[in-house]
């Protein structure tokens, strides 16, 4: 199920954010068969979503990736050339330093492929950001000799690594992420373990991310973590810290899959029926701001992909104003149901 090219390179209509938003607002939502996200919030007497204290600045430093995963919400791939410039990176660090941001969460694409990646991490360390997360797809660590020393680099800079491994056996992982991905991911995890990641007492954290391979929701994060730990230890001697279950949001390539496979309505119905009001206070958009490669600000990485800019006069890293941003309302649409289903979903797994 992995594709060879991004939707953008295929000129697929769904590479257009407006088309995605139209699809998410029409059909079953227009006919009233399902309530819109905003109607759902109102029916639970929940006001619009307001940010709490900003803790995480999530930077998408570019859409280039060595993989073309079938579910990718970024529509990343080797054919995507968008990347953050050095001046924008520096501006992000100035903002993070000035506002005492706790966590810099660096994502992509494969952030390690950015030509200034190592320079940027060194600068971020110099700016004394308390925690730096790298969303690494693992295979990049084994993709080319020039990346082989990344585990040491990660260790040297005490980076917190979060990586997708859709399953602890080969079949499902390769179906979602492409042939050979599982073996390379296992090799990469072993290399990370070798330098101390995932091992008790080292303080070097590697967390894994599970997301379903199809039109169904994840559940049972704790039990699945036990399963993963047991299987990876028994079969490959691998250790890791936490497993995060993430729901696939109906956008970009996953939306394309839902439509093409006739699962769109069924999946949206599942998400709506699984709406859990207690997730709303802890949504990712309440403590995170996402910055795109060109410096614009968004409520989350998903809104970034849907080109839903923050609704604030401070909408770019160059005019970052904490007060204005804290007073904004988060932009919502029907994709938000992906964050509120069941135990909720965020870049750190479940939220309740």
């Amino acid at each position, binding site marked *: 199920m992995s594709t060879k090219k991004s939707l953008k390179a295929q000129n697929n209509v769904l590479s257009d954010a407006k088309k995605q938003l139209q699809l998410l607002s029409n059909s079953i939502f227009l006919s009233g068969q399902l309530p819109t996200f905003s109607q759902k919030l109102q029916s639970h007497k929940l006001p619009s979503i307001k940010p709490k204290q900003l803790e995480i600045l999530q930077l998408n430093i570019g859409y280039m990736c060595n993989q073309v995963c079938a579910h990718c919400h970024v529509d990343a791939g080797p054919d995507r050339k968008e990347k953050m410039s050095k001046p924008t990176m520096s501006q992000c660090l100035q903002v993070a330093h000035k506002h005492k941001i706790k966590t810099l969460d660096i994502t992509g694409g494969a952030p390690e492929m950015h030509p200034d990646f190592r320079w940027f991490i060194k600068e971020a360390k110099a700016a004394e950001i308390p925690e730096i997360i790298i969303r690494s797809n693992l295979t990049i660590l084994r993709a080319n000799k020039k990346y082989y020393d990344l585990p040491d680099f990660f260790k040297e800079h005490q980076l917190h690594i979060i990586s997708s491994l859709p399953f602890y056996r080969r*079949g499902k992982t390769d179906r979602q992420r492409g042939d050979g991905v599982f073996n390379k991911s296992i090799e990469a995890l072993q290399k990370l373990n070798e330098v101390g990641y995932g091992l008790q007492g080292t303080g070097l954290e590697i967390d894994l991310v*599970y997301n379903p391979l199809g039109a*169904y929701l*994840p559940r*049972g994060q704790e*039990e*699945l973590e036990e399963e993963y730990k047991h299987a990876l230890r028994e079969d490959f001697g691998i250790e890791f810290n936490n497993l995060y279950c993430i729901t696939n949001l109906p956008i970009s390539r996953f939306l394309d899959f839902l439509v093409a496979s006739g699962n769109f309505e069924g999946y949206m*119905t599942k998400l709506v029926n699984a709406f859990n009001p207690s997730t709303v206070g802890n949504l990712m958009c309440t403590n995170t701001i996402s910055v795109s490669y060109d410096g614009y600000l968004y409520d989350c990485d998903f809104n970034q992909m849907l080109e839903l800019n923050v609704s604030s006069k401070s909408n770019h890293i160059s005019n970052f104003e904490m007060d204005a941003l804290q007073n904004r309302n988060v932009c919502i649409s029907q994709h938000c149901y992906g964050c509120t289903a069941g135990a909720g979903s965020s870049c750190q797994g479940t939220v309740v």
Partner: protein
Amino acid sequence: MSKSYYQPEDLLKFGSINEWNPELGKKFFDYYQSVFKKGTLSEREKSLIALAVAHTIQCPYCIDAYTTDGLERGIEKEEMMEAIHVAGAIRGGASLVHTVQAMNIYNKLSM
């Protein structure tokens, strides 16, 4: 609407049985929820048992519900199939073991 006794969307209306008898309905659903909570058996094991039983009683709603539940829990198709074969073996065995009764009667009545 296609003509069939079973409609997939009716599964989601299961809770509406409470409308005609809230007291017993509530007792049933509370019991149901407690049964599937992690106990000595894991939630995963219970899901597989439910899938096997669903095949034994041939309930399309339960088959739908517990195939999806299994997928959601990361249960693989090989595990599901093995569980269903257990149901098949018990079902087949239950038929076959009655052969002993047939044999007894046959032998008793025959000269």
